């Protein structure tokens, strides 16, 4: 167990922003909210995964919505209490701990806020080891954990409880249009899981990982060291490219911010171009020229992360704009996403790129995302 401090939140938000691979919502706003709670005297404990009792009752907490909406329609503040209370009422039992659905982006902070407001510990693990746009893209659900029952709430307190769903695809399918109805921002409490299930299927130690990655960037900033190297030393992976954003095309469809960007190379990459497709998160990076894509450099489920070249700040897809200078990193994902069953759910084909073949980035055992 460790108690979250103001500085932990700063480091976690920064690291989670990088692991968010462009999505997961703006971690800065989550950081502000969480630090505001700490200032008001709230506190929250983080529990190591192995300390979670097998018979504990656990739910995941996470926001659903489009990041472009998240920076504009800010939360009301009592959403986590409301959604947890609703699910507890339905289950007839209190939750013992809160799990993180997604370490990437602001969903790294959402469980901490919920923990602070409800007094429940937060487990140091998540269901992605990154950010992903859809609910079924989860090591828990791929590992056979049930998403029943789940609850979602909007800023007005409207609450919906889901149960008897066939699988997590159905949760995604039904929750998404409701989320759009709720204004593209809704908070979900998912599942009534046992501690044993969570231990078996989660990606462990990812709050710690986010904190380390964030701290590494903060340290690199102080010592003028390379941000990319500092991050890659912890996560493994490679720097794909450095350059300047020359085109961003985007559209919000069915609750997702989809689009594509083109980055023109600078320095060692001068003359080169890469294209990156995103759906909230960065999905596929291709080498190419100004107009056409050529070979794939990296793709989901591995992480494609954009860092602002001068500061090492993660760039979320809603911040993309002409002229940004970025370093593009590719980071190996959790092994739990590299199985044939998992790739059906989180591989390039699942995002509408059937022709892209996933070729796993080299991974050093014991390093980076579990």
């Amino acid at each position: 167990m460790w108690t979250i401090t103001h500085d932990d939140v700063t480091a976690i938000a920064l690291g989670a922003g990088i692991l968010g691979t462009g999505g997961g919502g703006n971690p800065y706003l989550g950081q502000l909210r969480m630090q505001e709670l700490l200032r008001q005297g709230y506190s929250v404990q983080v529990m190591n995964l192995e300390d979670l009792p097998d018979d504990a009752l656990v739910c995941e907490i996470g926001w659903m919505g489009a990041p472009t909406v998240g920076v504009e329609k800010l939360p009301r503040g009592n959403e986590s209490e409301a959604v947890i209370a609703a699910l507890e009422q339905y289950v007839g039992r209190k939750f013992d701990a809160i799990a993180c659905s997604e370490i990437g982006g602001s969903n790294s902070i959402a469980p901490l806020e919920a923990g602070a407001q409800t007094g429940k510990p937060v487990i140091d693990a998540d269901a992605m080891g990154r950010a992903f746009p859809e609910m079924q893209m989860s090591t828990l659900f791929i590992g056979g954990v049930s998403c029943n029952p789940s609850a979602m709430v909007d800023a007005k307190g409207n609450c919906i409880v889901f149960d008897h769903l066939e699988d997590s695809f159905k949760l995604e399918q039904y929750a998404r249009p409701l989320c759009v109805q709720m204004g593209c921002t809704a908070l979900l409490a998912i599942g009534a899981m046992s501690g044993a299930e969570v231990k078996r299927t989660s990606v462990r130690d990812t709050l710690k990982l986010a904190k380390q990655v964030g701290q590494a960037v903060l340290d690199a900033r102080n010592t003028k060291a390379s941000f990319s190297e500092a991050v890659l030393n912890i996560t493994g992976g490679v720097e794909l490219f450095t350059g300047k954003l020359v085109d961003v095309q985007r559209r919000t469809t069915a609750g997702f911010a989809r689009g594509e960007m083109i980055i023109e190379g600078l320095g060692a990459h001068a003359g080169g171009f890469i294209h990156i497709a995103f759906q909230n998160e960065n999905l596929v990076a291709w080498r190419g020229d100004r107009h056409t894509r050529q070979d794939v450099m990296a793709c989901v489920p591995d992480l494609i992360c954009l860092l602002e070249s001068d500061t090492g700040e993660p760039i979320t897809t809603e911040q993309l704009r002409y002229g940004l200078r970025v370093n593009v990193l590719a980071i190996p994902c959790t092994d739990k996403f590299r199985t044939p069953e998992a790739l059906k759910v989180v591989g390039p084909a699942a995002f509408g790129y059937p022709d892209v073949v996933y070729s796993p980035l080299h991974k050093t055992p014991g390093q980076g995302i579990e």
Partner: protein
Amino acid sequence: MRIGIDVGGTNTDAVLMDGRKVVGWAKSPTTKDVSSGITNVLRALLDQTQASPASVSAVMLGTTHFTNAVVERKSLSRTAIIRIGLPATSALPPFVDWPEDLRAAISGEYHLVHGGYEFDGRPISALDDAEIKEAAAKIRDSGIDCIAISSVFSPVNPDQETHAAELVASVIPNAKISLSHEIGRIGLLERENAAIMNACLSHLAVRIVQSFRDALVGLGINAPFFISQNDGTLMSADFVEKYPVLTFASGPTNSMRGAAFLSGLKDAVVVDIGGTTSDVGVLSQGFPREASVAVRIGGVRTNFRMPDVLSFGLGGGSHVKTDPLQIGPQSVGYEITSRALVFGGNDLTTSDIAVAAGMADFGDKSRVAHLDKALVQASLERMWEMVEISVDRMKTAAGGVPVILVGGGIILIGDKLNGASELHRPEHASVANAIGAAIAQVGGEVDRVFSLDAIPRDKALQQAKDEATQRVLREGAIPDSVEIVDVEEIPLSYLPGNATRIRVKAVGSLAVE
């Protein structure tokens, strides 16, 4: 011919330019009322160059006055904000990430009211006229007449902000109202912050712009009068009265563009040493490197497009405290000519150190002759170290970079700086800022909704770019100089036909007469 003016915290500089040629320049202390400082410097300039007021075809003015007001928390009006968006947004109320002292300086009163839009244009909740009027009445009763209004998703639908402004005006007849959608982009907190800062500068803006006008008219200069904005383009004076916040960071942009113009360098670090502060920026291909993530001004997070500048408290008027040795950040500012030792005052400043060291020669040298040599040397080394640290922080690669020194305070710097591969002090360096204002560009913006079902995106973008270019040309730009500097697309999914708001900004150099 045209005149570029830079109103700094310490000095007001003016330069007369004929095409690319600097005809003459003058420098005079900034005065408390601002306008007499401008009058003084222009009179000196006209005298010196023997130019007639009628030969002046345009006046371009850059001022850090509004930025400084926020940074120093001076001359700010007490300001309230009405945010329209309940029940959403209350987790992060207005001012949530503001420094406490700045918030206190402008009262920090806020009201959250119902309303706002969802991303698709549906109302979050109905706008309640009575609730807004009630908030306005409370603001009036607090004696506040500067009001910012923000609303969730106002960049895609400004109606509620506009309507709320009418209601507020009906309760507070002479209210100065700043609407967030006119100032910022998507991102509620940052846009709202910009609107609040604009509102708290409203009274100052009217006063300052009027004093600028009076100064010009008093000298018989009736040429068009522009003020430079943060992206290096020019705004009309009337526009600045309403949107003073858009002048933020125009100073560094001007000095960097002036430094590029004077040195002929396109890639370098620019150190602009003024009277109170120094700004370090980076020239990349002749343009200031832009800060690409949120920029804090006076500690407040905004999402303007801004040059990436590091400011620190070293200038020609900085206080030198001994035992222990400390330079700045306090400065005697525009009172240097009465308060510095060499000018008969009682304050030891960095300029006194430079005179004592024989690096500069002004004022009464004998008044600093008593200064301990070791103190003088230690002070100089401390100042140079301050510059070196900042240059090092701003450069992106290890190793030396060319450094261009500009501004009145460059007398403080010796022949060599660690980390600089070359040290440039171009001719007229002390008025680089005013030169940057004089060569400032004109801008043209297109901000329109296109239906991407009716017209392909490529064509819509091209059309917007062409229109923006045409606007810049109509403003008098040289055709070859026009370039597109900003392209932004906001999908408006609630409108049929794949509607997208496209905003394109083009800039060009003003054709010289």
